[in-house]
């Protein structure tokens, strides 16, 4: 009995190797050159499943966000179930499923910033833009985001203007920046 079980295992393993060897990554979704960068990350990691988060990072850095097509492409290329890929995307805060606005104002709401009144900064911006945190204005100009902590706590409260850290931020500075972006 053991012998046949072993034979069966060997057979399954053999088939599995065939499947693995036969696997070819799916074609790129379009001619967009950015897909090549995404593919590059996967190739660098040998299309291994554990490269999922790395690849999603690359997608977000070149496309700005993750849409259904890109998640599907990455999942198929790495042979990860779509449910798992989507699970990972929605688990981590850093990944965004919505395209960002032309400009992004991020308010840090880490502890040090909170103690120094970052909540007021968010409220002021929300009121001015007429949106809540995590949203983008209807004209697609400005996104308002919050960050858990950017590590510039010594200069709290901190806002990021398109990713650039500016410390000891005031409500006036925040509004002034939003006004400037609204017309740019």
């Amino acid at each position, binding site marked *: 009995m053991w012998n046949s079980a072993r034979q069966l295992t060997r057979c399954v393993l053999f088939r599995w190797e065939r499947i693995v060897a036969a696997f070819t990554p799916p074609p790129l979704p379009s001619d967009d050159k950015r897909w090549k960068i995404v593919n590059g990350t996967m190739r660098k990691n040998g299309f291994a499943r554990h490269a999922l988060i790395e690849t999603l990072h690359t997608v977000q850095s070149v496309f700005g966000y993750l849409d259904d097509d890109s998640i599907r492409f990455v999942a198929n290329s790495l042979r990860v179930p779509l449910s798992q890929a989507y699970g990972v995307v929605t688990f*981590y805060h850093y990944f965004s499923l919505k395209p960002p606005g032309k400009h992004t104002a991020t308010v840090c709401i880490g502890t040090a910033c909170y103690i120094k009144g970052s909540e007021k900064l968010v409220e002021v911006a929300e009121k001015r833009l007429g949106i809540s945190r995590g949203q983008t204005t209807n004209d697609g100009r400005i996104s308002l985001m919050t960050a858990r902590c950017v590590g510039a*706590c*010594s*200069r709290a409260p901190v806002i990021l203007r398109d990713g650039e850290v500016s410390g000891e931020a005031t409500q006036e500075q925040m509004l002034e920046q939003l006004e400037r972006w609204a017309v740019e």
Partner: protein
Amino acid sequence: MTIEELEQIAKSVSQENAKYDFEVNVCMDLACMSQGADRLREALERASEISGKKVLIRRTGCMGPCSSGPLVRVDPDETLYHHVNESHAEAIVTSLGGEPVPALQCDLNEHFDKQVRVVLENAGHIDPEKIDDYIARDGYKGLLTALTEMTPNGVIHRITESGLRGRGGGGYPTGLKWGTVAKAAGDLKYVVCNGDEGDPGAFMDRSVMEGDPHRVIEGMAIAAYAVGASKGYIYVRAEYPVAVSRLTTALRDARRRGLLGNNIGNTPFNFDIEIRLGAGAFVCGEETALLASVEGRRGTPRTRPPYPAVSGLWGKPTLLNNVETYANIAPIVRNGGKWFANMGSERSKGTKVFALTGKITNTGLVEVPMGIKLREIIDVIGGGVPGGHTFKAVQTGGPSGGCIPAEMMDIGVSYDALLKVGSIMGSGGMIVMDDTSCMVNVARFFIEFCMTESCGKCVPCRAGTAQMHTLLSRICDGTGTMQDLDLLVSLCETIKETALCGLGQTAPNPVLSTLKYFRDEYIEHIVNKRCPAGVCDMKSRLEVLA
């Protein structure tokens, strides 16, 4: 690469530096950068070119007192200038060789005198992107000494002798952990560095990775030799792009110098490191969650045992330590375990880096010997609370820690002492609060954080933190009752005892500690519908009825 070759490099660096009469070090840490340190450096370069003086302009990691930034230190006189901007560049260059610029001189002697620098010994002295700068300050000597003169067991013995405990929060003895991984069966083992500094309000690990990346790499390589691993991962937050790029450069340079890769130091030891990006999940600070994330999965923790030391990354024995722990390794190997054990208190050895933030005059990074009184850190090193306000509490350990009130300021900082007063050492965030901070509001802030960061795997944490948040919100807007307070306490106890991982088990700490020391504030909110600090928006009775 051999020790002789390292010394050769160190010699050529000092010869190169000797060509210059002066060294102007510009702090290029995030805090100083956000105030224009980049433009300042360019202005200094232009000014020194025009003046014709032999000046070496060097960009360095964090010098410490970020609130005084941008900072510039002129060597060999060690003159520290604060609040420097590009318009001061000419004055600084002109003053070289003569009297320092008085208006910019920074008087922080008290701030620095109390500090002992081990982890931050190179911060402010080397260019983090130049491996030779690190080598010139005894860099990689520890690694090569370990490889050529010590056995793996000898290294572990030295670390055990030093009494070093994990700097990530738990304070598990590092030597013991290394010993367990070394003894674990299996050819393939991993070394992982936790650089996912999720604790909001702490930035020591960021500064170490950005200011002295090779120190972390060297620590990991020594660890790998000690436990018999050949592959390492550094798990860094994606929110720290500068740290990622500095580490990438450092890894590349270390490989080029033969300090990573195959046959390091002409020994049979092989080791290489890869960077893995975190994606913003506080729970990934928990070891099993972090390992799941390195494997490309959702960062949900699992039950322990088996501990990662036995079954970690891909089921293999894995050594997982924090950035600051690895940063302590090289000096211990170089100087011996006894040297390290001489610093600090009885059961907490060495030094600890703290990120001092909040309502305090000198915000920034400080490194102090363990056992130092909390009062000395706040009043002397931190310069006290600014603006005529009174000190109320200091929060340590982030969302897993607690608030320590003013009456307890005379405790010495150590793992055990902080645990005793209801907080934890944590990774080293220290957030100072004054009379304008409402402690109930702070507790609610942390519970909200834990609620959104809960991975949802176990019910006590997922549902419990949400219920705690509801109760605290009620108290904050003046609709809470005394029964709510009792319910809150029993909920805290339940979550503490039943949650799956560290996140859930420690989530009630901020509430329990504020309830213990600031109960009157809770009662004031409930009975008198009043927030003593004036932070919470109280609903009027009419609103409540409607």
